[in-house]
Every structure is written in structure tokens, then in C-alpha cells.
């Protein structure tokens, strides 16, 4: 009996500790420690925090009043728990993967960034969400800048501006929301009123909606080897979580998501930088989740959430394998790589596992979640969307499932002879790969965590057959195109995306605009100053000269006249009344 009370007291006390706190404290410690000690502490943080999260029941655990509003920095329900778990897994894997890094800046930023992501998904009100939203931006940008090249600095700056913009829009939206509804609670918002739209746009920017996606493909490939791994896990998933909470069943999201699944494929196929290929495929995968959120049924939400869960792991795995290649060879362009399987066999195998997962091979994790979204689309009558998703699945297989491992590890021999990466990297990749296969083989474990119980079974004959056929023909197409020499060759090139508008067109336009404006402004100003001088000259004639109208030094006469006028006018006015 006594021990139960003690446990209760213990859990009562620990309930008060929101999950971002261990990460922030850990970041502080990591800032002052070095070497093995820091490594141990960093590995321990997600483990301890995850155990703690495992015990926390659902409900609101931290709440206080702020002016007239209730702030809820720590709220736990099934949806946030799901993301909480996967964020812990991602943080754990990424930390192991980056154990060899000696750069304090990166390690601290990574912990802060992971903590901010956790803070955001457990935020129960819009103001707390905004705070962590901006935290995500400010902490993650250091993972990009940590590469310490001019390119990464500029990319980071562009990234930061867009992210902060998203935060500012969120804040404005939140203020409007509070004014409209008298509460800041972060629940279903819906696309009603200006608040709904503003918050939607803020989420959309972070979610890499089409035309707002360039921060992702621009900045992620410029980050450090380990930075990209951790970056890929949090920012977009926080946005997916926020959409799932605030806008489930918003039909617009279905179309936006479908567009997100399709358009990156074209860019990904012609892109040479393999990490940028992965960045495009990240948008594509997020598109599946957005479609799921947009459909909004229990099955669709389950699909979106579980696909987010799986994507964090398999996309992380792919980024890790590419990171390993970059780490060992220093090159990232498909045209410079090839034939690495001979000396990097373990990495090759792990990469193929990741590729199989993202391509949704049966028995790999992508399959059990992506099929949920597609089933939901079909069930709700979105036939065309289903076709688009099908096309996107084939495309994913193409660029992420085949292109990535093929150009990195096979294709023509680049002559590079590097060994497998350090053990900590291999271990991290191994954990991710095991999870990919584990979830694929035994999806019930994942399904038990989902917000809704739908009794869904991915392994029925239709699904498996349809998916296998799709993959088979897609592979066939690749082989055929490649043999005929019609596959777009990997070339050193810069592919233009929407970012061209703000990286080239916009600056050029602005510069020419300013040049003209300045010329015009100069001319106008000269004219104005001339007029002003003339005016001043005239005025000073009136006011300033001793004999001027208002400054004569012998005022008595004129003033007596004024007095008389004043009096006469006054009397006249009062008498006529």
C-alpha cells in the first residue's frame, strides 16, 4: 500500500516535468561537458525522457493563467503521445549517429531542437505552440550554419527568414483566434475566419506546401551530415501534427497533399545531389500524410500519423546512409559516386532497407502505413487522388527506392574505395533498419499506439498484390529506361525550382526597382529641396526680417489696431446675436 502511494507521489511529481525540459537541461549540460561524458549524457536524455513519457497518463498536466487566457504547456493525448514517442526514437538514433561529432554547437543545437519539437507537440495552447514554433526555427538553423560554409550560411539565412515568418503568421493568427473565440486552446480550428486561414498558412509553410516548400530543399542538403538527419525528423512532422490537430477533414488539404506527393518526383528524378533527392522525397512523403489529414476519417488520420511515425525512421535511415557516404567520401553528387558497395557493404544493405521501406515494399514499414492512407482515399471516393498517390508511390520507388542506392553504391564505378562509416553511425542505422523491418513485419505494435482503433489489416491479398505489381513495373521501367539510355543522366547542374523566384528573380527585380526608385527619388528630392528653399526664403522675408510682418520691433501701433479690431469684431458678433 505504502509503495503504491510512493509511486503515485513519484509519478505526481514527475508529471509536472514536460518532455522538452530534460532536453533543454541536457543541452545546457552538453554545452559544458566534453568527450565520453557528454556522449553518455546525450544518449541518456532521450532514454530517460522516453521512460518518463511511457508512464505519463493522458490529460492536462501543466496549466496556468496568463492574462485572461489559460496556458497549457503540457497536454498529453493519443495524438501527441504518438509523435512524442517517435520524436524520442528519432532523437535517440540521431544522437547515436552523431556521437563522433566534436562540435559543441551542433550537439547543443540538436538537443534544443529535439526539445523544441517535443514542446510543440505537447503544447495545449497556441501561444506555447508559437513559442516552440520559433524555437524550432532558431535552434535548427545552427545545424545548417554548423557546416560553416558560405553556401550553408546563406541557405540557413533564407531558411531562418521563412521559418520565422511562419512563426509570426502563427502568432498573428493566434491573436485573431483569441479575439474571435476568447480562448487560446489548441484544438480543432478549421478554415473559418481570418484566424483559421492565417494559422493554416503558418502550418503550411512549415509543412512545405507547394510554393512554400523551397526552404526545405534549399536548406536541408546544406546542413551538416548529422544535422540533416535530425532536421528531417522534426520540423515537417510538427507541422503534420499541428494540421492533424487543427484541420482534420479539411478537403483542401487532400488536393494540396496530392500535389505534394507528385510534383517533387520530377525534381527528384533530375536532381544530382542525393541528399536533395531525399529532401524532395521528404516533401513527397509529407504529402501522403497531408492527404490523410485532409480526408480526416479515423482510418485516414491513423494512416497519416503512422506514416509520419514510419517516415521519421526510414527517411532518417536514408539520410543517415547518405550522410555516411558524404562523411566517408566528401561527395554527394550522384554523378561522382558509384560502386561503393564493394567497400561499404553494410551501409549498402542498410540503405536498401531504407529504400524498401520508403517504397512501401510489403514487410517493410512504409507499406503498413501508406496503404492506410490510400485505402482511406479510395473509401471516401477520392478516386483521382488515389491514382495520383499511386503514381507518386511509383515515383518514390523510382527516385528514392532505386535511384539513391543505385547511383550511390552501384552504377558505374567511381573508383572510390572507402570503408564503412564509424561504428556509432552503423549502430544508429542498424537500429533504424531493425525498426523499419520490425514494424513492417509486426504492424500491430504500431497500430496499438494509434489515436483510433480501426481494426485495419494491411496484409490482405489486394494490397499486397497491387503494391507488388506497382513496384515490379516501376522497376521494370527503370531498368528499361536505363538500358535504352533514356534515363535522365546524373549531371552537374542546378535545377530551377520555385526558389528561383526569390533567389534570382526577386533580388534582380528588387535591385533594378531600387535603382530606378533612387534615381527618381533623387530627382524629386532635388526639386523638392529647391521649392522648399524658395518657400523658406519667402517665409523668412515675412517672419524674420526686423521689419517683417510679424516681428517688427515697434509693434505698439499695429497691436493697438489689432486690439480695436478684436474688440469691434467681438462686440459686433455679440450684438447681432
Amino acid at each position, binding site marked *: 500500500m505504502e509503495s503504491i502511494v510512493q509511486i503515485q507521489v513519484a509519478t505526481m511529481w514527475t508529471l509536472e516535468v514536460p518532455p522538452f525540459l530534460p532536453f533543454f537541461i541536457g543541452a545546457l549540460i552538453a554545452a559544458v561537458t566534453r568527450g565520453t561524458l557528454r556522449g553518455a549524457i546525450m544518449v541518456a536524455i532521450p532514454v530517460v525522457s522516453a521512460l518518463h513519457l511511457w508512464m505519463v497518463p493522458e490529460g492536462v498536466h501543466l496549466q496556468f493563467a496568463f492574462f485572461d487566457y489559460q496556458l497549457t504547456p503540457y497536454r498529453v493525448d493519443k495524438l501527441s503521445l504518438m509523435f512524442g514517442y517517435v520524436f524520442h526514437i528519432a532523437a535517440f538514433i540521431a544522437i547515436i549517429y552523431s556521437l563522433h561529432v566534436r562540435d559543441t554547437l551542433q550537439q547543443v543545437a540538436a538537443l534544443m531542437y529535439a526539445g523544441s519539437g517535443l514542446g510543440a507537440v505537447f503544447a495545449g495552447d497556441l501561444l506555447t505552440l508559437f513559442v516552440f514554433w520559433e524555437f524550432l526555427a532558431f535552434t535548427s538553423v545552427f545545424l545548417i550554419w554548423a557546416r560553416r560554409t558560405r553556401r550553408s550560411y546563406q541557405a540557413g539565412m533564407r531558411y531562418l527568414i521563412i521559418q520565422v515568418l511562419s512563426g509570426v503568421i502563427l502568432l498573428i493568427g493566434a491573436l485573431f483566434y483569441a479575439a474571435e473565440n476568447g480562448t487560446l486552446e489548441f484544438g480543432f480550428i478549421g478554415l473559418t475566419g481570418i484566424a483559421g486561414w492565417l494559422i493554416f498558412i503558418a502550418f503550411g509553410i512549415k509543412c512545405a506546401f507547394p510554393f512554400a516548400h523551397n526552404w526545405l530543399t534549399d536548406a536541408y542538403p546544406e546542413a551538416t551530415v548529422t544535422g540533416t538527419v535530425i532536421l528531417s525528423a522534426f520540423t515537417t512532422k510538427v507541422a503534420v501534427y499541428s494540421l492533424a490537430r487543427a484541420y482534420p477533414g479539411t478537403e483542401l488539404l487532400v488536393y494540396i497533399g496530392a500535389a505534394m506527393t507528385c510534383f517533387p518526383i520530377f525534381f527528384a528524378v533530375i536532381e544530382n545531389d542525393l541528399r536533395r533527392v531525399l529532401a524532395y522525397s521528404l516533401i513527397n512523403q509529407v504529402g501522403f500524410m497531408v492527404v490523410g489529414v485532409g480526408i480526416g476519417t479515423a482510418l485516414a488520420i491513423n494512416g497519416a500519423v503512422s506514416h509520419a511515425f514510419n517516415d521519421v525512421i526510414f527517411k532518417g535511415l536514408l539520410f543517415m546512409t547518405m550522410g555516411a557516404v558524404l562523411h566517408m567520401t566528401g561527395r554527394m553528387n550522384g554523378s561522382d559516386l558509384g560502386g561503393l558497395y564493394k567497400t561499404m557493404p553494410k551501409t549498402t544493405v542498410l540503405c536498401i532497407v531504407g529504400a524498401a521501406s520508403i517504397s512501401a515494399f510489403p514487410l517493410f514499414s512504409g507499406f503498413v502505413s501508406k496503404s492506410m492512407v490510400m485505402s482511406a482515399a479510395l473509401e471516401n471516393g477520392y478516386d483521382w487522388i488515389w491514382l495520383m498517390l499511386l503514381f507518386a508511390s511509383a515515383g518514390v520507388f523510382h527516385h528514392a527506392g532505386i535511384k539513391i542506392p543505385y547511383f550511390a553504391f552501384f552504377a558505374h564505378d567511381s573508383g572510390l574505395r572507402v570503408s564503412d562509416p564509424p561504428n556509432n553511425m552503423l549502430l544508429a542505422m542498424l537500429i533504424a533498419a531493425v525498426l523499419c523491418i520490425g514494424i513492417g513485419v509486426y504492424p500491430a505494435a504500431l497500430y496499438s499506439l494509434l489515436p483510433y482503433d480501426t481494426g485495419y489489416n494491411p496484409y490482405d491479398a489486394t494490397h499486397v498484390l497491387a503494391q507488388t505489381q506497382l513496384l515490379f513495373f516501376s522497376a521494370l521501367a527503370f531498368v528499361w529506361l536505363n538500358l535504352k539510355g533514356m534515363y535522365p543522366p546524373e549531371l552537374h547542374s542546378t535545377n530551377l525550382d520555385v526558389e528561383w523566384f526569390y533567389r534570382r528573380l526577386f533580388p534582380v527585380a528588387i535591385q533594378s526597382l531600387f535603382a530606378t526608385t533612387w534615381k527618381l527619388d533623387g530627382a524629386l528630392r532635388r526639386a523638392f529641396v529647391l521649392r522648399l528653399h524658395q518657400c523658406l526664403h519667402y*517665409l*523668412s522675408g515675412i*517672419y*524674420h526680417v526686423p521689419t517683417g510682418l*510679424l*516681428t*517688427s*520691433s*515697434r*509693434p*505698439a501701433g*499695429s*497691436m*493697438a489696431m*489689432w*486690439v480695436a479690431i*478684436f*474688440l469691434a469684431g*467681438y*462686440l459686433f*458678433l*455679440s*450684438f447681432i*446675436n
Partner: protein
Amino acid sequence: MLIQLPALAVILPLLSAPLCLFLRRSLLAWLFTVIASGLTMLVSITLLQQVMASGTIVYEMGGWSAPWGIEYRIDKLNAYVLLIVSSISTVVLLAAHTSIEKEIPQDRHTLFYVLYLLSLAGLIGVVITGDAFNVFVFLEISSLAAYSLIALGEDRRALWAAYQYLIMGTIGATFILIGIGLMYQMTGTLNMDDLSRRLPEVAQTRTVFAAYAFIIVGVCLKVALFPLHRWLPNAYAYAPSVVTAVLAATSTKVAVYLLIRFTFSIFGISFSFTTVPLQTIFVILGLLGIFAASTTAIFQKNVKHLFAYSSVAQIGYMIVGFSIGTTTGLMATLLHLFNHALMKSALFLALGAVMYRIGSAQLSQFQGLGRQMPFTMAAIVAGGLSLIGVPLTVGFVSKWYLVLAALENGWWPVAVLVLLGSLLALVYVWRIVEAAYFNEPPAGRGAVEEAPLGFLIPVWVLVTANIYFGMDTRLSVQVAQAAAQSLFGVSP
């Protein structure tokens, strides 16, 4: 003793004046004057406390009861103005000894203090008395003393300026006297309280209209309302610095007090604001004054002239507040009485310090002073900021209430114009800042030392007051509000 306080407020400076004549030494006369003025200030503070605590004090001079005798009637309004006059006079006096040392010949120092005390007694008397004819008497006492004080200025043009002021002031005083005479003719009484009760019976006669017209025009001359301001700039510019500081801060304020007293207490708002379009005329003249005088100030080459014109502009603000004709508007005017007294006394006293060191107030001589007289110039900048109406200074408080009053009345163009007027103030203050901080000292001027403590202490007391009352507005706002409410017959 406490019962006799109202009489004491006038008698103290009035009797000190002839006594001071016996003190031949400048220092002694100065100390004596400071003590007399300081005691008057203490009396004013006590009176204000009493009035705020227990309401209007009525004092019958010599035991003769009104309306035969002269009655001193102290309500919140005149207790408030009394405090302004006596405290500014005392603080400015602190610098007098140092200042007149260079500006007035040694043998006239005693005379200066005698005139100063007479002027103070006159101003206090105008404010404190409850008898209309008595107002004229005290007004003449203070004005005659002021003319002589201005004539003491070292510049020979001072005499000329004093003469012009004398003519204009006398016209104004005569007009007031004519007005009072007409009122006496119609009511048979000179007591203000009595007048206010008897005037409504005969209000619709032309004699009363004429009486009000004469009084308003006469008082407006004293107020220096645009376009009747022409005596002011020269008088302020050529008077000794201390005289300018005290006159700028008190004499026009007392005239504004008279305007309020005659309009609200004696004739009553229903008469004053309805018989003639007084509101419209005053708003237009006030706004014209703000813009014309501020623009003129921008073109001045003498900083004393500059601030004198700025004073005319500031009076425009008071008139605008007055003519809005609501409690808030009147409150803004009363606040500006207090606040403008603080700003202008600080500014003119700081100018006195500059005069003391470089013997000139020409703008060209201000070049490079920012580094040579840092404390003095900082005071001028602080006073200038207050003049513009920057938040955390008193100028902001009065502008705030003025704009509030205009908006309350739906006069938003007035509010906009008032704020635009502040921009003009920014321009002329900036000219001084530019000269003092961004220009090199003119060639040929030797090293300039910081002003002596005799100046710095009173100047910085006033500057601190400018900032303190800009943040802690309890005293000024509370009293101004209570006074405005009682004038409108709202029991506070």
C-alpha cells in the same frame, strides 16, 4: 495664524519689498528675497492642502465682510495657480544672485529684488483675490514692476521693449478696468461671488456684452493670445534672464487664470460660450497661434526670441483646451499651465546660464556648446523634449489630455493639428540641438566653462520636475481635475 494665511500670501512679498530697500548689499537682499518667496511658497502649499482637504476658504480682509470689504476667496483653481507662481518664483530666484551679477549693474541689485518682490506680490494678489477691482489693482502692481524689471536688461533695446510692453499692458489693463466698471454699473457690486449671482439677471443687456468683450480683449492682451502677442517676444528677449524665466512661467499663466475666472466663475459658462461664437474664435486663434508662432520661432536667430515665440505657441495650446469647453479640455489647459511653467522656467534659466558664460543667446554662439557646457545643454535638450511633448516628460501629459479632450468632443481635426504643431516644436528644438552638438565651436571664442552651480542646481531642479511630473502625474492631474470639475459645478 492659519486663519490669516490668505492675507499672509500677499502681505509677505508686498511688505518685504520696501524692507528689502534697506538692504544695500546684493547678497543680503538676495537671501531676504529668497526667504520671502520661499515662505510665500510654503503658505501656498498649506493653502492648497487645506483647500483640497476642506474646500473653499473665504477670508475677509480687515474683518469687513463682502460685498463691502475685500474678500479673498481661495478655491482649488487659485490655490493651484498660487502654487505654480510661488514655487517657480522661488526656484528661479535661487539662480538670481549668480545671474544678475553679470547682467545688471551692481548698484541696481537691491532695486531688482524690490521689483521682483512687488511683481510677485502683484501676481499672487491677482490670483488670490475675490474682488474684481482688486484684480485690476494687483494686475497694475505686477505689471508696473514687470515693466521696470524688463527695462533693467543690459541691452538698450530692453528699454524700448519695456516701453512697448507698457503701452500694450496699459491698454489691456484699461480695457479690463472698463469691463469691471460696466459690470459695476449693471450690478452694483465688485465682489466676484456676488457678481456671479447678479449677472444672470441682467445678462441679456448690451452693457454686459460690452463688459465681457472689454474684459476678454484686455485679458487676451495680457495672455499674449495671437495676434495680440506682439509685446511678448521683445520683452522676453531683452529682459534679464531671471526676469524672463519668471515672467514666462508666471505672468501669462496668471492671465490665463483670469480668463478662466472671468469666463467660468463670474460670467458663467452658459453666458460666455453661448452669446458669441467664442469657442470657434478661440479655437481658430489658438491654432493659428500655434502654427504662426512656431513657424516664426523656427526662423529666429536669437534663442531667447525663439523660446519667446514658442511661448506664444504654447499659449495657443492652452487656449485650444480652454475653448473646447469641457471638463477634460479645461483640465488640459490647467495641466499645461503647470507643465509649461516648468518647461519654460527650466529653458529660460538654462539660457541664462549660457548668457552668463558667453554673454549672448545668438544661435550661432550655441555652436559646439554641447561639449563645452554639457549639463546646461542637456537641460535645454530635456526642456526641449518636454516642449515637443515626448513621453515621460510633462509636455506629453498636457498634450495627451488636450488630444483626449479634442477627441472626446469629436474635434479630431483639432487633435491632428495639435499633434502637427508638436512637429514644428521638434524643428525649432532641433535647430538648437544641431548647433550645440553637431557643429564645431566658432573660431575666436575661447574656452567656455560649464555654468556655475548657482545655475545648475535650480535648472536641474526644474528639469527633474519636468521629468518627475511627467511620470508621476498624481499631483498635477488630481488638482487640475478637481479644479476643472468645480468650475463646471460638478462636485468632485
